[in-house]
């Protein structure tokens, strides 16, 4: 199988280039793309990329794979057409090869205050939720912050400093509907400008790529209705 991998070392290369690799993969192999990348690294030890858990829970190895963002560790080689083109996640500065600078992405995450704020009297033991209240967090809390969604979103490419992006907004909604959080109104006020939420154009690239099968567009729709209820 043929591979075409994005290479760029700012210390030695004037500009990025694509490096071709060849790898013998037996027919019907259940290998994942990450395994293949590790074998390519054996061929050329200078190839740099991030990975950790190799089972789709840490969110380290998000790449653009044949033009679509995804996690290499849970992308079966058998699902890919040769040559496999692997590039860094689009829209973020490249540090080296497939390693991108995620600072802008995390800044947006930080902005939505991704923690529970409860300003009411602390209970004796713990803040309880009914099974129904807890169920509202399903489809939201599973996000692993891999950035596959935000870096596939054109609105995030153009305004990564102002548009919170699908990942951040999914998390924002996760805390907006948490029955234990008392800051709903303040959280909504922080989102009600022309960029943070409203730059979402509903293209649903985010839904298309999320390796955890989450639906940021739907969460954004819910935030919009909450803003609407609050504003009229």
């Amino acid at each position, binding site marked *: 199988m043929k591979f075409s991998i994005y290479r760029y070392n700012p210390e030695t290369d004037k500009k990025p280039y694509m490096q071709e690799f060849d790898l013998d993969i037996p027919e019907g192999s259940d290998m994942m793309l990450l395994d293949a990348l590790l074998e390519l690294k054996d061929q050329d030890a200078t190839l740099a990329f991030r990975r950790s858990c190799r089972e789709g829970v840490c969110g380290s190895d998000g790449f653009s794979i044949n033009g679509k963002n995804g996690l290499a560790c849970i992308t079966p080689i058998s699902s890919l057409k040769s040559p496999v083109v692997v590039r860094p996640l689009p829209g973020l500065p490249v540090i080296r090869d497939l390693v991108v600078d995620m600072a802008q992405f995390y800044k947006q995450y930080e902005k939505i205050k991704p923690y529970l704020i409860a300003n009411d009297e602390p209970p004796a033991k713990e803040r309880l939720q009914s099974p129904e209240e807890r169920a509202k967090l399903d489809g939201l809390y599973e996000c692993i912050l891999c950035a596959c969604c935000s870096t596939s979103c054109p609105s995030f490419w153009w305004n990564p400093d102002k548009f919170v992006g699908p990942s951040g907004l999914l998390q924002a909604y996760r805390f907006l509907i948490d029955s234990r959080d008392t800051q709903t109104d303040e959280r909504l006020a922080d989102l009600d400008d022309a960029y943070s939420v409203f730059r979402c154009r509903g293209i649903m690239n985010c839904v298309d790529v999320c390796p955890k099968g989450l639906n940021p567009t739907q969460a954004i729709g819910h935030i919009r209705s909450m803003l609407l209820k609050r*504003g009229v």
Partner: protein
Amino acid sequence: MVATVTSLGRSGLHDWIIQRVSALIMLAYTLYLAYFVISTGDVTFAAWQGLFASTFMKVFSLLALGSVVMHAWIGLWIVSTDYMPKLAIRMVFQVLVIVMCLALMIWGIQILWSI
């Protein structure tokens, strides 16, 4: 929160609502005009003038014109902040759009007044 920027409304929500409502008004106006053309059969100058002579049509037209202008400004402002990263280009573009919107508005009022 992103500091208030030069969009039209007071908040992101406000802009969003203006955009939807103005779209509905434009749609209603288009449908109404289409209905007039179809139901009139022979659209003579007199029939056309008669249509716009009524106060209802004047108000409706003005409303539609206002909607076009607001819709265009909000929409093009968004496009410019997406696709024109160069400040100078963005500013010239926005000024052009504003001038055109205002000109369109004044011109439209003047035409409607003269009927």
